[in-house]
């Protein structure tokens, strides 16, 4: 940032808890010198509902709906780490059809979450219409989930030992509509956004995160893969039955806001293909049972267990410590967006005011998850 030895007075600007493009109640106290940001200090906690303390006073099954409210853009993906950690302690064996149903619902909600991430990203750059088309695809995905487990967003579909409901023909119809509508949408969206000059100028070379920086700050998910580190938990440390499916893990090298957009668009194709494969595998296990042998009143043997899953926002981990009673002694969630925004104070200085908005939008963060 060349100093133009213009002794302009610095001022502190509050991108406050209520701001159109902070994706919720993130507050960034930034010092500005004219249009250029000099220092930025993200302040969180405005949505801290004390989730981990509440889970300690609820039984395991009562605690499951709380996990939906962490990353509320992909409700069912949050249930998985909590379920896997407790199942690790219980040592219960999950039937194959239940695992496939878990993976299918997680991939569908991952697609829905990516649609919001991309749509809101382009809207924050100023093209308001660009959020309506991905949201339509998200409505199709939510249609499948409400047919499968009753709720649009906060499903609470995964239970300890299996899943809540079996696949029915209403889901077939809804999923078929999603599978038909998605490819033409993706092709149209590439044409709408990829070659847009203004979009390229606004995102290329903005908010560059090098691979070392990404690893040092513990970035995960699409933000990490956009900086050149190919690390996807579903391939490197597979959980459920992910080792049975082959899928490509796209990687970008640039690490700037544009790379994060391209990364998410390529991953949409991978998710689409994965949904098709899992759906086919699910068809074969027709009539399998969907719930393992888990007692009605869940008493988890004493011990500590940690399970990680690949969520749309990054790697979500859940550490459960139990002392043999019906409710957990301690539940802690490793929340991907919490680590993803820790990099803002080092990334934002030197950028313009409009770039701050681009960086926040390109990281696709969710405040419910950050503040837990």
């Amino acid at each position, binding site marked *: 940032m060349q100093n133009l030895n213009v002794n302009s007075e610095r001022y502190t600007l509050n991108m406050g808890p*209520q701001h159109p493009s902070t994706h919720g109640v993130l507050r960034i106290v930034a010092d500005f010198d004219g249009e250029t940001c000099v220092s930025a200090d993200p302040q969180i906690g405005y949505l801290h*509902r004390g989730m981990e303390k509440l889970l300690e006073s609820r039984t395991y099954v009562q605690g499951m709906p709380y996990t939906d409210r962490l990353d509320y853009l992909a409700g069912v993906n949050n249930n998985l780490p909590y379920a896997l950690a407790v199942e690790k302690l219980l040592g219960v064996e999950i039937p194959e059809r239940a695992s496939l149903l878990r993976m299918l619902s997680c991939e569908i909600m991952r697609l829905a979450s990516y649609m919001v991430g991309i749509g809101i990203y382009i809207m924050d750059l100023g093209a308001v219409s660009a959020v309506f088309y991905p949201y339509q695809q998200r409505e199709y995905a939510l249609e499948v989930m409400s047919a499968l487990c009753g709720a649009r967003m906060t499903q609470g579909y995964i239970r300890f030992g299996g899943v809540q409901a079996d696949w029915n023909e209403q889901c077939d119809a809804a999923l078929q509509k999603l599978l038909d509508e998605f490819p033409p949408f993706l092709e149209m969206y590439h044409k709408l956004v990829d070659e847009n000059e203004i979009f390229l100028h606004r995102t290329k070379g903005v908010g560059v995160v090098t691979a070392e920086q990404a690893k040092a700050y513990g970035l995960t998910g699409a933000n990490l893969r956009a900086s050149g580190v190919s690390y996807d938990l579903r391939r490197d440390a597979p959980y459920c039955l992910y080792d049975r499916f082959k899928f490509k893990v796209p990687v970008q090298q640039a690490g700037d806001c544009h790379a994060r957009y391209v990364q998410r668009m390529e991953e949409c194709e991978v998710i689409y293909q994965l949904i098709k494969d899992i759906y086919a595998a699910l068809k074969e296990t027709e009539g399998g049972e969907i719930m393992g042998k888990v007692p009605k009143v869940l008493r988890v043997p004493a011990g500590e267990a940690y399970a990680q899953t690949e969520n749309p926002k990054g790697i979500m981990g859940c550490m459960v410590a139990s002392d043999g009673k019906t409710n957990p002694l301690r539940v802690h969630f490793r929340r991907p967006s919490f680590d993803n925004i820790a990099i803002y104070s080092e990334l934002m200085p030197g950028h313009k005011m409009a770039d701050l908005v681009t960086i926040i939008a390109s990281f696709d963060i969710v405040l419910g998850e950050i*503040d837990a």
Partner: protein
Amino acid sequence: MALKTNVRFPQRGGMPEGDPNNSHDLLTQEELEKRGILLTSLDKLFRWGTGWSLWPLQFGLACCAIEMICTTQSRFDMSRFGYEVFRNSPRQADVMIVAGTITEKMRPAVELLYHQMPEPKWVIAMGSCAISGGPFVDSYSVVAGADKVVPVDVYVPGCPPRPEALIDGMLQLKAKLLHPERQQVVRDVK
């Protein structure tokens, strides 16, 4: 001569036929004046205008905010009623939709926003967190309901409420505006 308005209002407003609010006995002019509500034609014109152009404040807190965005999207279009103009600055907003959990840290911000809005303003508490703290009511950092912070006009239950429920909440607010005499205005900020 106070005309007792017991003639049933035509159902043009958003009030469905079997709505419990209809069962109230309609208040006559003097009863309204006793309550301090002076009904003039200019006021009726203003209420008609505001009813059809409630500009919500862009202010989402948690999961309900995502459903609020879904309400403005193509499928459940809130713009049919003219409510899609989400204003970012509280100065130009009429309705504050409290969509999500109010925490102690966010409480001063919510009050500040409410006091920054110009006078004829209303509040819709969307979702059980805004109504009464919802699933997080016994947490150490959650305010049990938006009416501890701001006077609330319409409560939209659900966790999160479906977009149609939010649209119905806006229509209830419009009905409350267009027919003030029908509503029992109860405002208690503890």
